[in-house]
């Protein structure tokens, strides 16, 4: 049996200040997730109608397509209203749902005053050391389609 090694890259870290209380910043991020999430960034095959974070630990993070189909993105790993939310996101470099890529998005809401909240985001990415790179590079739907996808996304 081939031993599997977890490969990690350094996490993506972001910090942003918003003019809202901690409670409202958390609400807009989660309950109004669909209002701000870029519509171009969906995983399902059809155009995205709505993106949803279910407001509870163990809840789903998913999208609804224009055709009524649903496409899972991940799971709510931690749900601490107004302070912190952690989402798993099984996404690979082809922007597809992929169980072998484990990524986690942790978002912390820190009150700087009654009206200003600092939002810190950390996206941790790791993957099992799979042999898929060959397929990813060699297949017709590999890097070239990924490149096309990126171009669509970047120019939208």
């Amino acid at each position, binding site marked *: 049996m081939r031993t599997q090694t977890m490969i990690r890259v350094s996490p993506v870290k972001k910090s942003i200040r918003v*003019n809202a209380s901690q409670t409202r910043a958390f609400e*807009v991020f989660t309950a109004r997730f669909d*209002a*701000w*999430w870029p519509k171009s*960034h969906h995983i399902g095959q059809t155009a995205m109608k709505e993106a949803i974070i279910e407001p509870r630990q163990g809840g789903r993070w998913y999208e609804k397509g224009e055709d009524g189909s649903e496409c899972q993105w991940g799971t709510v790993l931690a749900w601490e209203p107004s302070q912190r939310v952690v989402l798993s996101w099984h996404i*690979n470099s082809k922007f597809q749902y992929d169980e072998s890529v484990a990524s986690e998005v942790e978002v912390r809401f820190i009150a700087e005053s009654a009206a200003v909240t600092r939002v810190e985001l950390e996206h941790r990415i790791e993957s099992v050391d799979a042999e898929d790179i060959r397929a990813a590079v060699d297949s017709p739907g590999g890097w070239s389609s990924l490149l096309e996808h990126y171009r669509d996304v970047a120019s939208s």
Partner: protein
Amino acid sequence: MTYGNALAALADPTRRKVFERLKAGPKSVGRIAATLPVSRPAVSQHLKILKEAGLVREEAKGTRRIYRIDPKGLGALRGWLDQFWDRALEAFRAEVDADTKRKENQ
């Protein structure tokens, strides 16, 4: 653009051979060069481009540098997500401001 680099990096036949040598497992520059009709400096140059494209990773082992495939282009994925979150969080901030205006007008 990271993904464009990955595609362009593999368009070169020699570079593709260098990349394929790593499919069997991590290797040093010397070991890759030994199986190809190209010089070590040329192999190093190809590896540098593959690394910048997010296709391979480099590790120091003593005085040697060991190269391995970056599975699933995680480096490329990371680069893409780094830019993506800047954009998504700006959209989030804009929505917070829009939400504030809505509440003021109520």
